């Protein structure tokens, strides 16, 4: 796949100026809205049953970034969420734990303490989440504070205003600065696709983030509607697939916001499977940013094991 030659060595040329960056982003193949939505709808008709469903539910549970991002969050709430993330189904030790707990930066120490050496990672939203409307040094201080407090992963937001105004290099430089501030922490770049509006923008912004060094591209903050959709995620998966084909570097995708049903999660996994294949089918490369999704996954998992649905009271609300 060689539409735009983007060998790693030429990345520096790409970002030499706003004009060169623009040329590359606008040289990407366009996205036909009708076509991509039809493709996503077709993939959503895949029938995932029995053993395949079992596999998909467990995989999805392990990909959840269990999230609480409310003004009313307290240490108690975060500790409860961490307990849930470590053992999603207290009655079944074979149930996998979630990938990460996602919180605001000030609650990172609480999560780090509660998760200990469980292997569940701590993700912090930063850079003046969710709007991103703050001076760069404030955003970077936000990132550093979270990393110093022990966050393994940073979920940043891009400056959508700058992006929509065509100041791609500003968006790029901000991601690079954030990347530097992250140190060893993994960087997820939130595109807020609901504000980018077109699929062409989603593809270009994904490439922009990847060129700037993102470890993950993420659909949404969850604070803007629409958040993650199947076609948007499909376009981002095509972008990471093409990016690896051209540069050799693999980037992950996180679908966040609005995914509440296990059935929907399975559809996302089908799209991952048929767009990117095996290499992206693990928590290392695909995540769900969600809160209520986990309980539905657990409920369907139990139904599959026992043949019966347990009432909602049998699943913990945290």
């Amino acid at each position: 796949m060689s539409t735009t030659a983007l060998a790693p060595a030429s990345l520096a040329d790409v970002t030499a100026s706003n004009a060169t960056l623009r040329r590359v982003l606008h040289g990407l193949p366009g996205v036909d809205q009708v076509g991509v939505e039809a493709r996503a709808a077709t993939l959503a008709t895949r029938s995932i049953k029995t053993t395949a469903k079992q596999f998909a539910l467990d995989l999805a549970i392990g990909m959840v970034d269990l999230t609480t991002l409310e003004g009313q969050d307290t240490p108690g709430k975060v500790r409860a969420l961490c307990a849930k993330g470590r053992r999603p189904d207290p009655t079944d030790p074979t149930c996998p734990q979630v990938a990460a707990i996602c919180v605001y930066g000030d609650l990172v120490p609480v999560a780090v303490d509660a998760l200990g050496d469980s292997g569940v990672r701590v993700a912090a939203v930063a850079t003046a989440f969710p709007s991103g409307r703050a001076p760069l040094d404030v955003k970077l201080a936000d990132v550093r504070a979270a990393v110093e407090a022990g966050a393994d992963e940073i979920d940043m937001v891009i400056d959508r205003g700058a992006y929509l105004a065509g100041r791609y290099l500003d968006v790029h430089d901000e991601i690079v600065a954030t990347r530097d501030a992250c140190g060893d922490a993994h960087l997820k770049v939130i595109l807020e696709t609901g504000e980018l509006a077109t699929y062409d923008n989603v593809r270009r912004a994904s490439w922009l983030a990847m060129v700037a060094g993102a470890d993950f591209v993420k659909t949404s903050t969850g604070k803007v509607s629409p958040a993650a959709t199947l076609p948007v995620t499909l376009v981002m998966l095509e972008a990471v697939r093409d990016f690896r084909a051209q540069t050799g570097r693999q980037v992950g995708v996180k679908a966040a916001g609005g995914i509440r049903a296990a059935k929907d999660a399975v559809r996302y996994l089908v799209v991952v499977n048929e767009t990117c294949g095996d290499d992206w089918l693990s928590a290392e490369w695909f995540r769900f940013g969600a809160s209520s999704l986990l309980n539905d996954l657990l409920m369907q998992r139990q139904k599959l094991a026992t043949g019966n649905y347990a009432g909602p009271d049998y699943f913990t609300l945290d």
Partner: protein
Amino acid sequence: MVFEYAPAPESTAIVDIAPSYGLFIGGEMVDPRDGALFKTVNPATDEVLSEVVAAGPEDVDRAVTAARDAYEHRWSRLSGRDRGKYLYRLARLVQERSRELAVLESIDNGKPIRESRDVDLPLVAAHLFYYAGWADKLGYAGFGPDPRPLGVAGQVIPWNFPLLMLAWKIAPALAAGNTVVLKPAETTPLTALAFADICRQADLPPGVVNIITGAGDTGRTLVEHPGVDKVAFTGSTEVGRQIARAVAGSRKKLTLELGGKAANIVFDDAPLDQAVEGIVNGIFFNQGHVCCAGSRLLVQESIADDLLDRLKHRLATLRLGDPLDKNTDIGAINSQAQLDKIRELSAAGEHEGAERWSPACELPERGWWFPPTVFTGVTQAHRIAREEIFGPVLSVLTFRTPAEALEKANNTPYGLSAGVWTDKGSRILWMAQRLRAGVVWANTFNRFDPTSPFGGYKESGYGREGGRHGLEAYLDVRA
């Protein structure tokens, strides 16, 4: 593969296939007078499904007589509104029984249940609903204030979309006030016979729809029958020629919807991932058993490698197998004869020097199967670029300029459909004006809608089906 989809077969409990069927004449299933029995098989398993009649001349005569009687004494005396009521009733019954009909279609034809469920059956109902709406508005269709029907229509349909082609034929005929004798294809009679049951369920006046099964001989007898006023045929160009000869010089009105060798043209500014989907949908939809299939991919040289990479990557994800599995993308080839033809032309492609490629793909042991196949390095002179293969075989050619694309696209004896992929609106219009094809799709392929006329140029036939234009074929507009 990490994520293996478990089998998800659609249940066959909903269909009830009788061990043998008669003919649907005059509103009831009757035994043949001079027809013999033949077997219809499931192409995915090679198992016999049922026995049906190859209607003989006497049977055909009886069906045409019943249709004539119904035309003169019942159907032509009904108001348009009352004809519409019956059509609406047929449409609703098709919707109510759509799962059963979809399963039956997949069993008899070999097409994936995903397609019969999500494409064929919704379109069948949509056609019936659409023409039901026209029945009392014929005076506003642009064919004069009170256009008259033709009489008895003899209709012969193919095996690739058995029930959909039935709806395309029966809906406008009945809306316009004609009665019909319809012959489904030899290999796929079962959904037409199920439709006979729906006609009974709908209390359609006896003789308005008659369904006689059989092979080529039955079809020939039907179109040559002097009691038929109108002949409509969908199928191969070869048979279409014979029919045109047979009705030449008679008062019979004729519409033919025949073969195709459509160009699917991808320009360098096309939305590539969607173009790949369009190519897949263009040639691998219904195993390529589609007269308007995009069997010739014309791709601009500057993006040919990139596009083919993407296409091959995509083809590796196609799932071939049990047509009743809800996750199957490619089903069975409809018959041994068709499989032989696909094999013969593919061998010719290799022999003539084109490069053949298929994804790794395991074929079931029983039944008739052919893997999705792509030929690259094809030129206009190759047989696989000129002859209709009617199977999951794509011929890839390249071009350098829009004019060259147009020239190659039009350089075929056929002219049924074409596809154009580009982000440039003006180029779509420029191409569409110049492509000699009945349907031109822009940034999509194989999309059908009852409101849109469908039909060919040149050896792809004449007359239009669908839309307001589709009514003309069943109305007396000669005056």
